[in-house]
């Protein structure tokens, strides 16, 4: 159990879910993959059962499955198959003993289906699964579980439902008592009785299932990373901008799979404060602060470039108050624009952040504040 079985296989990129008997493997010459086929120190402590021998067999087969999923050689796959078939036989026998047909009519058909599932269809990870069991049909006040069912998640037709009669409840209670396992937290007697078998057999699929989940987690983490980058790097958007962007990419966000951030940002009536340079203005007011609005704009945040149609406003003595032009956004932070006015007194402007490029931002900003106070 404690032997750390770690394989470092070069030249294999994505092997984790390669079907056991499938010889075709996607490869990437530049990557190596480390696969840990170790159960961890406390693993079995969390799986108390009286079916210890069965559990030990399941542990060994689980490790083999984990290693063989790497498709090292066809012969090793065959070896695992033989051991898996043996485990399935023993496990099925134990199951039939715990839940006999005499009390749970036809239940052996389900254990037979399970046996065939894990031994016959080796090319699908979903087949490395357990029989599932749960109480159903909770009714009344106070509530009572009326039914208990066994099933294979992969096969809807496999479901076997049983009314929880006193006879069946007594049978399950007897299994628990005979097992001498401390009462489990949660579950009704038949669930706990089934749990003894489930905890014994579960190790055969644990490592493989764990890798499926770990790989899935990596994919989600990648999306989380994309969102993190978006939040860190992209231009600030007002709620209206965010709404506009969401509406524009509605197909992406309402799709039935998880996605990353929008590829571009849209801006709609986005308020700005700009530092405007108007060469034709009177001396002393050539450079001044104006408020502006980006009527509509787009920003490719990944490449750090965007543009907007912008108007600026400020009451001026000798020039029109309003001018309209274009703004260019650089590195998601700096904006520079050109404004046209009716009388030809055009101007350039940049946002306050761009003051950094010309010197100390605070100093410039303070000067501007002093100038208008």
């Amino acid at each position, binding site marked *: 159990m404690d032997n750390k079985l770690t394989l470092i296989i070069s030249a294999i990129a*994505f092997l984790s*879910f390669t079907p056991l008997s499938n010889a075709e493997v*996607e490869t990437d010459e530049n990557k190596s993959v480390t696969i840990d086929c170790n159960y961890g120190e406390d693993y079995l402590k*969390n*799986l*108390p059962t009286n079916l210890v021998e069965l559990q030990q067999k399941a542990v060994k087969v689980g490790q083999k499955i984990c290693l063989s999923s790497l498709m090292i050689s066809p012969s090793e796959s065959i070896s695992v198959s033989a051991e898996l078939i043996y485990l399935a036989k023993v496990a099925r026998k134990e199951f039939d003993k715990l839940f006999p047909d005499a009390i749970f009519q036809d239940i052996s058909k389900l254990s037979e289906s399970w046996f065939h599932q894990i031994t016959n269809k080796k090319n699908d*990870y*979903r087949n490395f699964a*357990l029989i599932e069991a*749960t*109480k159903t049909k*909770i009714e009344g*006040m*106070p*509530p*009572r*579980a009326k039914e208990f069912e066994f*099933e294979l*998640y*992969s096969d809807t037709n496999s479901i076997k439902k049983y009314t929880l009669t006193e006879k069946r409840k007594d049978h399950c209670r007897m299994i628990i008592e005979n097992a001498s396992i401390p009462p*489990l*937290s*949660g*579950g*009704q007697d038949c669930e*706990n009785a089934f*749990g003894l078998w489930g905890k014994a057999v*579960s190790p055969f699929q644990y490592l493989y*299932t*764990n890798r499926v*989940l*770990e*790989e*899935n*987690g990596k*994919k*989600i983490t990648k999306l*989380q990373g994309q969102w993190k980058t978006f939040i860190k790097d992209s231009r*600030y958007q007002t*709620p209206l901008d*965010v*709404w506009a962007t*969401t509406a524009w990419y509605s197909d992406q*966000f309402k*799709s*039935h*799979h*998880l*996605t*990353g*951030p929008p590829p571009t940002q849209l801006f709609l009536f986005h*308020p700005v*404060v700009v530092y405007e340079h108007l060469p034709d203005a009177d001396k002393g007011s050539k450079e001044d*602060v104006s*408020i502006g609005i980006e009527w509509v704009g787009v920003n490719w945040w990944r490449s750090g470039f965007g543009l907007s149609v912008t108007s600026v*406003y*400020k*009451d001026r003595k000798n020039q029109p108050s309003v001018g309209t032009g274009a703004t260019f956004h650089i590195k998601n932070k700096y904006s520079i624009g050109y404004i046209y006015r009716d009388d030809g007194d055009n101007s350039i402007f940049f946002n306050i952040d761009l003051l950094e490029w010309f010197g100390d931002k605070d100093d410039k900003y303070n000067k501007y504040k002093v100038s*208008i*106070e």
Partner: protein
Amino acid sequence: MSKPIVLVIHGMGSHEPGDLKKQISEGLNEAAQNFGLNDFDINEKVEFFQFNYSTYLDEIRQRDANHASSIAEHLKLLQGHGLGENIVTKLTKFFADFDEDDMLYTHWMDVVYYGLMFWGEKIRVDFAKKINDVMIEANKGHRDVHIIAHSLGTAVAHDTLAKLFRKDADIISEVPGLDIAKFKIKSLWTVANVSRLLNLLNDIADPNKSIVNAIDGDGCSKYLVNVRNIFDPFTWVKQYNRDEGKYQLLEVDTVRHWNTHDIKEYMATPQVSSYIFAYILGIELSDSQWNAGITKHAETSINKPVEELKVAFEDLQNKPDTVDKIEALEQMFTSAKEFKQRMEEIIEETDNG
């Protein structure tokens, strides 16, 4: 550890990490005490995991408020220097409104941020990671995973599960996904379900038809319980009622406090707690325990017949169903506001009477 795992996700408003777990625990422990279950502590029976997204929504709200106040600050400076007083006052008020600190405002903004903006997808991705992490944990000990979602959390949970679970998931692709032929949530408890209202806003998957159900072979859950208080105004608009598969509707009508939307209040009711005890913990109450629980809970409820309460809120409950996003949102929040006012008056009246 063999305890079942219970993943909880909160609703609208600000929640400190750990708050929801505490509220749920307190509600269930109170109910257990009323039933006469001695030395009962739900924290010893299950292992709670919590997903918090309100901290993130608070950050976004704060960032928007900061931006708005920064613009407002500039506007003040410009008053008399290129901008007239009138326009400055109007614009400043507009931007200042973003910083309003009001419970209903926060609730309203949470719904807007989640339902109408891409921030909802960021939250779903984070919640999907949490579900995946919890599934990994459960796989270690062959444990069951249950989810309890409250209010806006029911929409987050629904939308995330609808995007994460699927039939025939392609595990070779870059798209995350869990195949329902292999993975399932043991039970999903939606308390004060607003997922249909949110679906009107984000159009992800119709909660009445999605994979988030407990139909054999078709759903991502083995058991689905929808819980609503008939006097919870947040459940009146676009009501959820998917009656298929292993679905259970638990309707309660007890009122102890004006805030009938409160998760702790829901958990403390005999109906809800007894179903959680029966399904998640396997504890089935005797008739005498049940009767004791009912009596003790009723002692703390307001002394007003249910039928009278129904009449008092009839007009708010029976508003016509709408498919208009804004109208539905308005309906929910105006009903909630009106409900609070009327209920406070009723409680005051019964206290004095």
